[in-house]
């Protein structure tokens, strides 16, 4: 099968390339990007005049609900929703039910992903058994089973000695680690940023120090052990400053931010809407501004959806009891492009943080239109206007606080390894 897409605006942040041209695909590979070779004889030609052609997005943090206990979503449903959002590679955190602390779980996820065939799904293994933060999980076996990295998801390790051992052991097996910095005791029963809004509403607070104390601990342990760690889900100005200082000292550390932290803040909690409950919590507008600046100056490498599809029941509870999380794969791209609209990021810079930057963090070849690479990409219509409506979302989780938000531009068709997996060109 040979496909040629003509007249598209080809955006390839990996090569800093932005030009009108053709993309040629043969089988599951890209064979040309820019000028179509004369001897390329396509079976199908698509005229993409006025459309953008972008490498498939790489999402470092997306829960799929499978395996799960009464959870919303399956690998099939969520990868289809991801495809509708332009995402063709995604990493699944280990806080599945059961926890991904043995090879059976990542094997199951990968098998389901192959059956669905919508996206490249990379499981993240649990760093400790049952994510209990006490006994190490079999990292080597998890790696053999296809885990791209190991993580504690949202459950921090309390004991510093255990944490240090985990870093050392992972380093000896070249297993990359992903940490959400969160001090277990400072976060404790908190449900919101410990600031003005929580003070007024009487919501149990999570101070910024829950993030920064844990981050400081991680950074010194990284320096001492030489372990490779990716920091996930930064929320505060202070944390961004700490990353900057660590890099100046020569610590190899990459980091990301969840896209909702770039748009929402503690002020959104004023009427206790459980859809705004996320973990780590939404912080102040000043923190939000610092995260945006962190992206602009490339202190923050990548943007994730932190996709967490939930049943309606899990949000139909008083704010503190509602499960944290946002169903985010379908809004990741548009929310990121808002930062281009307001001048914070350039278009290629924004796309870089959704494609080649996360691919480099994972050490995989993805997120580029370079010939020879996998043909995973999507077409985006910059003139198509749409409104977020939970009822029409493809994800099994309709838990979005962005209902009613209006966007300019929408993903219209997605290909995964040369195969069309999503199409709304005529819809």
């Amino acid at each position: 099968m040979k496909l040629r897409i003509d007249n598209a605006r080809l955006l390839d942040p990996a090569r800093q390339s932005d030009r009108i041209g053709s993309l040629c695909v043969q089988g599951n590979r890209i064979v040309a990007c820019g000028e179509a070779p004369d001897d390329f004889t396509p079976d199908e030609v698509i005229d993409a005049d006025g459309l953008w052609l972008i490498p498939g997005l790489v999402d470092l943090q997306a829960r799929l609900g499978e395996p799960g206990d009464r959870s919303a979503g399956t690998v099939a449903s969520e990868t289809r929703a991801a495809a509708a959002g332009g995402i063709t590679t995604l990493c699944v955190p280990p806080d599945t039910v059961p926890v991904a602390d043995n090879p059976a779980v990542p094997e199951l996820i990968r098998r389901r992903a192959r059956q669905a065939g919508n996206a490249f799904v990379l499981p993240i293994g649990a760093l400790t058994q049952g994510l209990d933060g006490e006994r190490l999980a079999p990292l080597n076996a998890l790696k053999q089973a296809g885990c791209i990295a190991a993580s504690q998801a949202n459950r921090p390790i309390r004991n510093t000695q255990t944490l240090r051992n985990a870093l050392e052991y992972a380093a000896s097996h070249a297993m990359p680690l992903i940490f959400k910095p969160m001090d277990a005791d400072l976060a404790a029963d908190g449900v919101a940023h410990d600031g003005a809004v929580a003070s007024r509403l009487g919501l149990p607070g999570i101070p910024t120090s829950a993030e920064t104390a844990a981050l400081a601990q991680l950074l010194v342990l990284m320096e001492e052990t030489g372990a490779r760690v990716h920091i996930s889900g930064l929320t505060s100005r202070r944390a961004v400053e700490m990353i900057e200082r660590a890099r100046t000292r020569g610590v190899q550390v990459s980091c990301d931010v969840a896209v909702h932290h770039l748009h929402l803040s503690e002020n959104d909690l004023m009427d206790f809407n459980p859809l705004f409950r996320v973990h780590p919590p939404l912080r102040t507008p000043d923190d939000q501004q610092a995260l945006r600046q962190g992206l602009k100056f490339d202190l923050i490498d990548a943007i994730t959806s932190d996709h967490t599809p939930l049943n309606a029941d899990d949000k139909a509870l008083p704010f503190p009891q509602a499960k944290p999380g946002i169903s985010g794969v379908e809004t990741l791209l548009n929310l990121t492009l808002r930062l281009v609209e307001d001048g914070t990021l350039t278009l290629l810079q924004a796309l870089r943080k959704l494609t080649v930057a996360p691919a480099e963090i994972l050490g995989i070849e993805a997120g580029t239109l370079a010939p020879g690479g996998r043909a995973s990409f999507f077409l985006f219509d910059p003139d198509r206007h749409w409104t977020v409506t939970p009822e029409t979302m493809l994800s099994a989780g309709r838990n979005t606080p962005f209902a009613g938000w209006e966007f300019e531009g929408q993903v219209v068709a997605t290909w995964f390894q040369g195969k069309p997996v999503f199409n709304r060109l005529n819809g």
Partner: protein
Amino acid sequence: MALVERDIQLDEHKRLKHLLTLEGLKAHHLTEILDLAETFFDANGELRKVPLLRGKTIMNVFFEPSTRTRTTFEIAEKRLSADVVNLNIATSATKKGESLQDTLWNLQAMGADMFVIRHADSGAAHFFARQVAEGVHVLNAGDGRHAHPSQALLDMFTIRKHKGDIYDLKVAIVGDILHSRVARSQIQALSILGAREIRVIGPRTLMPSCPEALGVHVYHDMDAGLEDVDVVIMLRLQNERMSGARLPSEKEFFRLYGLTEQRLERAKPDAIVMHPGPINRGVEIDSAVADGPRSVILDQVTNGIAVRMAIMAVIFSNAARHPQEDAS
């Protein structure tokens, strides 16, 4: 986006439909209730029975144990001739099966016109107000650390009765502000009614992280904080504050923040002493003060019945006024 949403406790005429919190209300919302409450006392200061809510069913749904608040609500409802149903729902029972939503919908199907709800989670009253059918009212009888508006209103009623007007008063609230829904609602009531100065007194470990967001002055020194105040409100200190390393001991707390006759001399000579109850004698307040001439603690309890009657009467009369106004 959430901020421009209409306040769910007000109807389209900006009148009270539910009472969830005092935040966002205007002075006239509060004074209407306080003024009405006054009319429920007869010439001898006895509470009258007024059949304003005959035929209405009020359900007191308490997810947290309470004796005094529930009892005063029940008495208030009976004085208004409403039909009263009391439900004490232990949290464990709801966890076992039925969801909160289903519990509420079932009770609603049994014909409730108003829910008086107490729950351990901040924001629970907002949650229930979003779930109930049109025409069913929610009255927050305390949700987590968030709000306890009827308590704050009865406190304002008591202050007004003894001090004339809230305006121009200096009020000190002493103790565990962080965990106190009573304090949050009192602070809001006092600022809505224009109190000259609102002080909170206690150690940093019992203060919210941003007290300035509440519009109060913080004192860690009790003597300085009580200087020249007109009203002293003591809060109950929960026993669990000791285990959480927020305080070294009850003894030290009493030594630093306990209200004694001697300390009270810092306040204005005619200052009154209040406490939402139940009091911990010898922990936050000395018996001599609690039972002394300046204490209005038992008066608060009596006023609580009248004020709760007034809250319910106002909400139901707002609802009844609706159709006529729409027609005219």
